[in-house]
């Protein structure tokens, strides 16, 4: 069981940088990074990063040294810990829609690594991929919530050329 929702941009990067008064180098990251991990605004109007954020970024950097993968904040982040056995991944921003297969591959490898040893237990994954492709004018987000084991198959069926 899973749900896949397409929608508008989840995290407005400019707004977050303004609200948090982030320094110039945070703004620079938006220009140079290909994959950037973002917080999201919750119902209390505060921005928090998801539970797996730091580990996910470290994992991506260990497994892919060809792309610029970073986290928007430079300093310590606020992490929303849900303490369930589910995998809560952050909002993952990509600068071009062609990076979608790469990101889903990294997410899939991360999930596989996390659920190793869990036997027959069912694990749910929650992740949002935000695409802001300036060249193609794409501002979209894809939110997946569901079985960790079906994540890859579900994303493999997405035609990135139809993301407009």
């Amino acid at each position, binding site marked *: 069981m899973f749900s896949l929702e397409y929608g508008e941009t989840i995290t407005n990067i400019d707004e977050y940088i303004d609200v948090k008064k982030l320094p110039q180098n945070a703004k620079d990251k938006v220009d140079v990074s290909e994959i950037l991990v973002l917080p999201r605004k919750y119902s209390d109007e505060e921005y928090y990063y998801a539970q797996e954020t730091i580990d996910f970024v470290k994992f991506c950097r260990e497994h892919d040294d060809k792309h610029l993968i970073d986290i928007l904040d430079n300093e310590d982040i606020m992490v929303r810990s849900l303490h369930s*056995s589910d995998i809560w991944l952050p909002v993952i921003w990509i600068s071009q829609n062609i990076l979608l297969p790469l990101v889903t591959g990294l997410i899939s490898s991360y999930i596989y690594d996390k659920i190793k040893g869990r036997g027959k237990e069912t694990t749910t994954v929650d992740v949002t991929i935000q695409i802001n492709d300036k060249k193609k004018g794409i501002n979209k987000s894809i939110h997946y919530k569901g079985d960790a084991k079906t994540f890859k198959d579900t994303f493999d069926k997405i035609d990135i050329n139809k993301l407009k």
Partner: protein
Amino acid sequence: MIGYFVNYSHSDVSSILASINTEKNLLLSGKYKDISCVDCSEQFSDLMREAENSNNERLANAIFVVNEYKRLFCLIGEYYHLLDLREYEKSWDMLQNCFDTLRFVSRFCKDLYDLPEIERNLKSYEELYPFKLFFSPEYIISKSHCSLCGASMQNISCPHRKGELYWGKLAVEIVDEIKELQAVSLVEHPDNKRLVAKDADDKRPPEEKFKLLDYFLDLRISKAAIYDKKIYSVRNEIYKGVGRNEMCPCGSGEKYKNCCEKGFSRIEISNVRQMNLFYFEC
């Protein structure tokens, strides 16, 4: 990872593997009280020194995993012993300790065929407890540090990932500051099943609260057994024709609908066999 340890040429390796075989034998023969759950680090210290001297991180990590694998059988032995004592509340926490260690070992040793057997055995016990809902807190972590290097785990400067092994040590996030406890939810699949949701006014004796487990233990099936089970509900003859709003015939003083209407659970067991455990050649 255990394969690397098994094939490593050192005199301590075969004695450690032989002690694990002994633990398994004790578990299967019902002598689990004899499994001494002592800190095994002494047995591994020579090997760990060798790993450090030869700059062999793989060996150091394998030692940690084998130590945990060995500890798993001690924990299972302690769990079975608590069942013998009918210490149901305590046994639940010990069962969760077994699962935590099992998950850790399974993560690093996917090829050991006895791990799914152990999981099946322990899961069968877990299903007999009345605990189905758990508390799960939601909070905002503002400060934490790495157990290995002490660096903040709230940014990417620390090189360690939680739950990974580095030089025979496990990287753990130590939370220093919680900015806010936002909620406590009732969930079915928490990270920690020790936070059990219980009725504070439930004054029933343990054998009543843990009726199904108590009934199962009365069947005197080997603790290390694997079996198929069917749980079904039965009702005593004295309840025939009792209206839902009538007082319960059991004498509890409650209405029948709030008391014995659901009947009581029984278990049918079939295809009983011993757990198939893996033995090392040593």
